[in-house]
């Protein structure tokens, strides 16, 4: 029973130091110096996570490995196109993995553009206050999610990590559709409230 209760609620582990603070530096070193050492650190952090992200949407081990590596190769190739208005480095990497999963596993059009076609190329360095505010945002979101009631955390995890639609989540949990939607909204409401003074 204990297993069943915790199945959808993986424990939050303190993020590795480079997830908390140094990520923007890693990305800008990849962009400006083509630093292979910086890339290796991103690679080691994200490949295992993206691999399990791909597996949770039904990719077999080999496909998940390929997609995780491809995500990181896109990070390498497109690092110069990252800028603070695209989110934090981690959320930018999430969007690359998400779009790849829609394209390759769902075989659908990833309609959300990553902005690589924007005419202006992002500058190498984000302003220091921008980096601070990005780190604050990511850290606040992380702590809000860590403190979510289990039912809300389960709903957002099924949506964001397993890629399930509202009706698929409702079927999985034997809940009315409206309950799924309200759990999602409640979770986001807390995130918004936590970010309000950083806008």
């Amino acid at each position: 029973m204990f297993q069943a209760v915790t199945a959808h609620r993986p424990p939050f582990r303190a993020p590795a130091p480079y997830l908390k603070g140094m990520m923007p530096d890693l990305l800008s070193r990849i962009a400006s110096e083509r630093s292979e050492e910086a890339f290796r650190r991103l690679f080691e952090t994200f490949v295992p996570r993206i691999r399990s992200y791909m597996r949770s949407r039904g990719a077999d081990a080999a496909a998940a490995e390929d997609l995780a590596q491809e995500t990181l190769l896109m990070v390498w190739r497109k690092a110069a196109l990252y800028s603070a208005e695209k989110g934090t480095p981690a959320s930018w990497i999430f969007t690359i993995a998400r779009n790849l999963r829609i394209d390759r596993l769902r075989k659908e059009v990833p309609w959300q553009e990553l902005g690589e076609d924007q005419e202006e190329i992002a500058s190498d360095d984000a302003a220091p206050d921008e980096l601070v505010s990005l780190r604050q945002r990511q850290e606040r979101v992380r702590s809000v999610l860590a403190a979510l009631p289990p039912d809300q955390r389960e709903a957002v995890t099924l949506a964001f990590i397993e890629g399930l639609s509202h009706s698929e989540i409702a079927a999985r949990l034997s809940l009315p559709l409206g309950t799924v939607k309200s759990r999602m909204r409640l979770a986001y409401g807390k995130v918004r409230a936590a970010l309000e003074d950083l806008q």
Partner: protein
Amino acid sequence: MSQPVSHHPETSKLMSFAAGSLPEPLAAAYAAHASMCAACRGELRDMELMGAALLCSAVPTSGDAAGSIPARPLSADRAAAPARHDASDRLPAPIARHYGLSFDSVRWKRLGPGIWHHRLTLSPGVQGDLRLLKIAAGRQMPLHGHGGMEVTLVLDGAYRDATGEYRRGDIQDLDDATEHSPVADPGAGCICLIASERPARFKGIISRLVQPWTGM
């Protein structure tokens, strides 16, 4: 392009869009709305932070190392830039680019009196419907319901129903429970993007529109 939008997507569906779990036709309409709405782009960035936090908090299986960086040369990206989109075109950039269309190049097909459409193809095997719809000034659609999730995004002109007025950039979320009888703006008519997770049922709606003339 920058007038404020007053009707936005429902929050939990926008979250689905950020999560990459919204059905394709609806994702197309939400992408089009986001291209016209800075407020929703901001919300999407915050929702993506949730995705990143959940991704980073997942504990990889023990002993699940990253493996080695593939031997493929780490070259810089030399992919061709996608087609440019004219920012003054009223067709939203994601739709214009994906389908290679501009607002004035849409080939409208008559669907019924005062109603034209242009179907947009979805990926093979995807259920649902995505199309542009043009409704003549003042034309009222018969009262109709909606199957599953459906959204309407106004691209030009406006329409009105019992819930309010929808202008360029406004999105209306419709679902099983919603019935409406929208009227196109008496001056400008209305051009909108309609996305549905189920196959469309326009035939039934249009035939009811024709009934008064055919005397049925």
